[in-house]
């Protein structure tokens, strides 16, 4: 047990969770107090002692499922297909297995239609045990898992889901629900509720499939190898430029609490910097209680000037996600700045501050930017030079000495002229000019990236690949 536990903790650390020595001691102590045959109890005991933040839960869960996976002969990839052939490891056994799989064997001799029908009934009556059984069956039939093949679980999951056609299943369930309604149709509210209910059941099925595939992978490839390949980055470390759709969704969920925390922290920082000048009146008043001796000097609260922010962001395809998150973050904490103005460009440039005004829903504003802003001039490929020179023509006078200008983009200019003099001029007028680049530093200046040409006129250039780096930059800015 102790070996498994240390291996598990090692895996958590490797995935980036800060697990301290005391915490691992606590975990070992906690394990003594729970019935070990209860897998859920073990899971919660380990979670309570080892992870201390809800954003780490997902990583923990994945690692837990791998390390404390259910084991048994029924999870061997080859086993249930080759009941007769004891030498399932040989290439021959492999072929035989595939032949049987296609023949719809799986022990029960169901046709795909019958299987779908069974699944449909199980889902309709919310029979969890049966859904789980069917999930097991579907994996062995459709996933086509082969021992020793180094592909991730997502591939198998995809193959299984494609065969089960869950979207079609949802429609069918809905049709049945409609037919069951008293007058043959559902009101919009009922329709919505039924859909959510079936959606939740299908989600459960999907999770069941994932679990099943993972269990088999563990049995096949061993714990550690699989843990390594399933390791997922923490939300704050997801790379903006290469995020998948799921990862983008988890980023969007992460950004809301992040902005709230940032706003609280910045507001506190402002209030607690006690370096104001002596408040003579207040000191004298308080000295009355000590007989006129000013024992306790009082200071004025400092009121540091809030910076003005001008954001100029490239929103062309490759860096759009990055620009969106930065705009979101800056506007969400706009109360920390005296003024925020935003401009977006691809090869034309447009001011988008108006989309944020009077809107309390930043997501909505970002959506409008994507659809309404006028940012294409010729062909819709990034042209930093043109965008910057137009910016200089139209808005140069609005840059005040109190403004900080943030330029966002990868500076991949498609070999157009750089017009770097604009950045130089902005630098003369503004307080600071910063460039935030979502590309890894090693790629800067390669290919058509000309960030170096702009960098010489900027106060600083930052690599900003994930939420953590972005948060750090913004908190130093305010």
């Amino acid at each position, binding site marked *: 047990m102790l070996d498994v536990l240390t291996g598990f903790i090692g895996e958590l650390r490797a995935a980036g969770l*800060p697990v*301290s020595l*005391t*915490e691992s001691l*606590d975990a070992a*102590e*906690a394990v003594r*107090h*729970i019935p070990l045959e*209860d897998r*859920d*109890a073990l899971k*919660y*005991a380990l*979670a*309570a*002692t080892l*992870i*201390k*933040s*809800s954003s780490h*839960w997902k990583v923990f869960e994945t690692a837990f499922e791998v390390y404390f996976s259910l084991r048994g002969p029924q999870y061997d990839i080859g086993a249930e297909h080759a009941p007769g052939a004891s030498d399932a490891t040989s290439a021959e056994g492999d072929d035989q297995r595939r032949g049987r799989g296609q023949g719809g064997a799986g022990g029960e001799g169901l046709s795909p239609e019958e299987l779908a029908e069974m699944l449909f009934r199980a889902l309709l009556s919310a029979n969890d045990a049966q859904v789980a059984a069917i999930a097991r069956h579907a994996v062995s039939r459709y996933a086509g898992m082969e021992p020793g093949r180094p592909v991730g679980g997502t591939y198998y999951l995809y193959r299984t889901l494609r065969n089960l056609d869950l979207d079609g299943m949802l429609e069918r369930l809905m049709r049945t629900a409609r037919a069951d309604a008293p007058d043959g149709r559902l*009101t*919009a*509210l009922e*329709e*919505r*509720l039924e859909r*959510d*209910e079936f959606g*939740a059941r299908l989600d459960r099925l999907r999770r069941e499939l994932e679990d099943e595939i993972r269990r088999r992978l563990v049995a096949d490839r061993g714990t550690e190898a699989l843990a390594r390949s399933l390791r997922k980055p923490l939300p704050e470390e997801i790379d903006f430029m290469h995020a998948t759709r799921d990862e983008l969704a988890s980023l969007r969920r992460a950004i809301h*609490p992040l902005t*709230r*925390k940032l706003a*609280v*922290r910045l507001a*506190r920082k402002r209030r*607690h910097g006690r370096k104001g000048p002596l408040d003579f009146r207040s000191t004298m008043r308080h000295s009355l209680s000590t007989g006129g001796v000013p024992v306790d000097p009082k200071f004025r609260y400092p009121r540091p000037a809030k910076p003005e922010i001008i954001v100029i962001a490239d929103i062309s395809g490759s860096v759009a996600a990055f620009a969106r998150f930065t705009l979101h973050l800056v506007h969400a904490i706009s109360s920390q700045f005296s003024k925020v103005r935003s401009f977006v460009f691809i090869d034309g440039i447009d001011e988008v501050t108006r989309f944020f005004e009077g809107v*309390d*829903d930043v*997501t909505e504003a970002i959506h409008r930017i994507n659809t309404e802003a006028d940012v294409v001039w010729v062909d819709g490929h990034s042209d930093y030079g043109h965008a910057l020179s137009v910016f200089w023509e139209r808005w140069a006078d609005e840059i005040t000495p109190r403004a900080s200008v943030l330029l966002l983009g990868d500076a991949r200019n498609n070999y157009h002229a750089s017009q770097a003099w604009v950045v130089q001029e902005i630098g003369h007028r503004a307080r600071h000019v910063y460039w935030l680049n979502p590309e890894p530093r090693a790629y800067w200046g390669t290919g058509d990236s000309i960030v170096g040409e702009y960098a010489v006129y900027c106060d600083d250039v930052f690599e900003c690949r994930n939420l953590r780096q972005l948060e750090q930059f913004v908190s130093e800015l305010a």
Partner: protein
Amino acid sequence: MSPPDGRRGAPAPLAFPEPGPARFASVQDVRERLGQVGYLADDGIAGVVHLADRLAKPVLVEGPAGTGKTELAKSVARVTDSRLIRLQCYEGLDESKALYEWNYKKQLLRIQAQRMVADSAPGEEAVPGDRQSGSTWQELEEDIFSEEFLLTRPLLEAIRASEPVVLLVDEVDRVELETEALLLEVLSEYQVSIPELGTVRAEQIPLVFLTSNNTRELSEALKRRCLYLHLDYPSLERERDIVLARVPGITDELADQVARIVRSLRTLELKKYPSVSETLDWARTLVVLGVESIDAERAKATLHVLLKYRSDLERAAKELVGATEAAS
């Protein structure tokens, strides 16, 4: 005076604080007893409470507002028949509000009284600087820094109590990062050091709950000393059971509908999701209005109990109810 046990001879080995007698027999026991006072715990909650009792460790409960964090501490106090001592945290909380304070007014009175006694007693006039006045000064000092003049605040109170106690440190994320350090000694050693008096050790290990709304990251030092419990919105079944348990006079059918609508609302992108307490409020509202089954009109008319932002209300009405007009 002999030194306290354990100091003499071989030093005691480092160990976890010794837990007192078990408050709960098993995880199942926690669930059942919490269920009796109307708090429906799931496996995670019951497991952590059980562990907290066995390991003598505080529990840090985090999660969105209104998911029953404070209620958990209150319920545990009720089922274990303990006194609940609550420390509400706020910005600017300090030692004298959280731990202890000397009652300086009473100390002043004591000094004055001493002087009056000395003045009235003939023949024993104290000459400044002589030995006798020195000794009375010492006596006086020992006297005014004794327990009689100590005002206990919640943390010390929980440590000194002889009866079983549940300590609730509410919204710990509201205090500044530096102030958190006040809690550390109490949470890990269950003791408080007072310079004038010495160290006060706990007579019984209190069960400690800290709650946080996650407005800022708590320090590593604090987190390390606690068990962590994340309370999220409950599952459909649990929410329905909570509604049934907490709202008198509600039918199974209505509770089910309430839970399902709330779950649908939580899948939308809202500024603030309806909390469990708001769900309960809504269920109560429906019962008071005599609603037996929710239709689109009724839902729309009472949604403001669940949602507190105008934009949220509009979106929810559009998503849940508005489709009717579009369809028909």
